């Protein structure tokens, strides 16, 4: 056991210590997909907030690194110190102020209403009893909750899916920031913005509570920029062109926009690569871990030794199977590796590997049970030691028996990696999110990702089937 612990420490040291010293980094966290504040262009995150971030970095003589996570995780990133500051068009609210410190407001956000063209809603007085779509946790969300008690409110994780609700008629209107709203109606010609501003809101950037030094530094830069009128300039600079109109132009444009324009197909390739590597590495880790756990439990059960180790394994399996993977990902990333500079991709692999290991342990245990007791008795009477019995007799038979189930687990694991986008890994779902945040079209990129997943699972099940048939040599038909 000591050896294993030592090995683990070595690996950890290698992984954390390999980053070279460069110009000091200033990490800004955001959710890219909120043009013109932050969005992807040519593979990079750009926008008003990023431009401001560059100015801040310049003032501090640091290098700006922009990190893209899910909106709900931004505060977490800043609190845990994984990022230095957050800039994501965040409204200054009392609740958030309890968690983090806000800078001065650097832009006023006008919240507007998007409806379908030809909608019955002519002005704000028609809203009160309609179905309203908002992005979860945004200022628009709390505003409509407070002001329209008779309305039905649909909270979406992403505002682009809220847009889809309005397009399809599931929701009557959408409340959101004016600037991205303008981008959206440019790309979706069946939508329009109601005249007027529903309410106004103030955006600020966030830093970790008590980080007065950075807060003052950022405030100084922001005030400077506002004085010079730079922020309005940025807004103009990052607002986009109009999309073509007409049916065919839209369809071919959809394809063009999703794949060709700004080489967006590269996002899908990167997503595909990340998904495959992450799933493969996690599958190997999960299999090794699951096998070790299954062996420890089996050894303990058949000899009555190492009971404490077995208890630990039992708890591991129980806890991992009893909690959602997303939670495990967050705990590993924000709690266990809170201060470590370990790569986020590695945390992804570790999470999915540890998660899969618990399931693999149960699958292999079922395999051990499926091998007749007589095989063990025969091995014992022939004086084969436990390791030899396992290696030559029980394990090969068990694996053969549960191979289809293991294949299932591999497919589940592959699909499970889709939550890695939450902590900023660009896998297939995140890739389609990035593209859709630029094209304002939610479904087409998602369908592309779906097809890629299907392709992967198809190849995986073919491969598993091939191995399965080769292993069946000793089973009589």
């Amino acid at each position, binding site marked *: 056991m000591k050896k294993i612990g030592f090995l683990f420490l070595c690996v950890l040291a290698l992984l954390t210590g390999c980053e070279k010293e460069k110009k000091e980094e200033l990490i800004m966290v955001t959710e890219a997909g909120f043009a013109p504040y932050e969005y992807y262009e040519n593979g990079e995150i750009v926008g008003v907030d990023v431009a401001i971030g560059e100015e801040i970095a310049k003032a501090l003589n640091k290098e700006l690194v922009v990190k893209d996570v899910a909106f709900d995780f931004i505060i977490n990133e800043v609190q845990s110190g994984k990022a230095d500051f957050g800039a994501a068009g965040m409204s200054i609210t009392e609740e958030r102020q309890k968690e983090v410190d806000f800078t001065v407001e650097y832009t006023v956000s006008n919240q507007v209403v998007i409806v379908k063209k030809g909608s019955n809603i002519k002005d704000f007085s028609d809203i009160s009893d309609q179905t309203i779509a908002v992005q979860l946790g945004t200022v628009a969300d709390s505003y409509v909750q407070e002001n329209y008690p008779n309305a039905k409110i649909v909270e979406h994780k992403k505002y682009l899916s809220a847009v889809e609700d309005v397009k399809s008629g599931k929701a009557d209107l959408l409340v959101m920031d004016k600037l991205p709203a303008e981008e959206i109606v440019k790309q979706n010609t069946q939508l329009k913005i109601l005249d007027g501003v529903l309410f106004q809101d103030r955006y600020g950037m966030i830093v970790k509570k008590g980080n007065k030094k950075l807060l003052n530094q950022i405030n100084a830069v922001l005030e400077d920029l506002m004085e010079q009128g730079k922020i309005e300039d940025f807004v103009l600079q990052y607002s986009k062109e109009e999309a073509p109109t007409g049916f065919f132009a839209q369809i071919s444009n959809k394809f063009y926009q999703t794949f060709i324009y700004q080489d967006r197909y590269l996002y899908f390739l990167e997503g595909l690569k990340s998904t495959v590597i992450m799933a493969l590495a996690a599958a190997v880790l999960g299999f090794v871990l699951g096998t070790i756990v299954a062996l420890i439990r089996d050894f303990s059960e058949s000899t009555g030794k190492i009971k404490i180790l077995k208890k630990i394994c039992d708890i591991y399996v129980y806890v991992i199977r009893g909690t959602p993977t997303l939670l495990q990902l967050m705990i590993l990333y924000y709690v266990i590796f809170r201060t470590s500079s370990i790569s986020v991709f590695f945390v992804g692999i570790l999470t999915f590997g540890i998660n899969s290991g618990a399931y693999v342990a149960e699958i292999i245990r079922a395999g051990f049970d499926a091998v007749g007791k007589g*095989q063990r008795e025969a091995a014992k009477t*022939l004086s084969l030691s436990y390791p*030899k019995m396992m290696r030559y007799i029980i394990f090969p038979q068990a694996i053969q028996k549960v191979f289809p189930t293991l294949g299932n687990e591999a497919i589940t694991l592959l699909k499970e990696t889709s939550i890695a986008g939450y902590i900023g890994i660009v896998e297939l779902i995140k890739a389609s999110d990035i593209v859709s945040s630029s094209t304002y079209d939610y479904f087409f990129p998602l369908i592309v990702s779906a097809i890629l997943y299907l392709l992967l699972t198809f190849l995986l099940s073919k491969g598993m089937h091939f191995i399965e048939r080769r292993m069946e040599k*000793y089973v009589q038909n």
Partner: protein
Amino acid sequence: MYKIRHLSKSFGKTKVLKDLNLDIEKEERIVIIGPSGSGKSTFLRCLNTLEKPTKGKIFYENTDLFSKKGKEKLKKIGMVFQSFNLFENLTVLENLTIAPIQNKRLTKQEAEKQARELLEKIHLKEKENVYPSALSGGQKQRVAILRSLLMKPEIMLFDEPTSALDAEMIDEVLNLMKEVAKEHMTMVVVTHELSFAKEVATRILFMDEGAIIEEGTPEELFNHPKTERLKAFLGKIGRL
């Protein structure tokens, strides 16, 4: 060779073996008979530690089999099961050679040579590379006997070796066991094959309800049973 003292075994509240005492000498061939549920198999399984006695001790060459040193002694005790228990993922040849090779009793070449010689004797040479699933029951049991023999045991335990076989295959297995007997192997056999018992056994134990009710030579037990229980048992078997 074996000294069994005050052996008791319970599964939960059910007492399966009740205070058994027995000595087994070299080259004895003991056949244990008795109605099903009498504890014969459990007794046999205790002899090579597959079952742990609730009470009592089992000594092999004066070593307690359940002590640390006992493990070494177990190598000298072979076992043949009712359900054969050939390793399903290994070929016939691998089944025969794995134990001698892994226990470093023989080199791979030596083990394979001896295994092939034995297969030749039972006319299964051509089956050396097939998996057990392709063998008949009788063939499986004969391979299982050879597998045990290749560990060069001093004593062999047979747990109802023909009970799982179709009638036409019983003889091929019994004949091989007789061959083994001729080589002066010490044997303990649990079986319902009374003719085999008569022909081969040097001593017969009649067990019922977890105890040895009668013991003696085949002649004594079969021709002059003393207890009512044995008489009833022989009567039933005889009618079958």
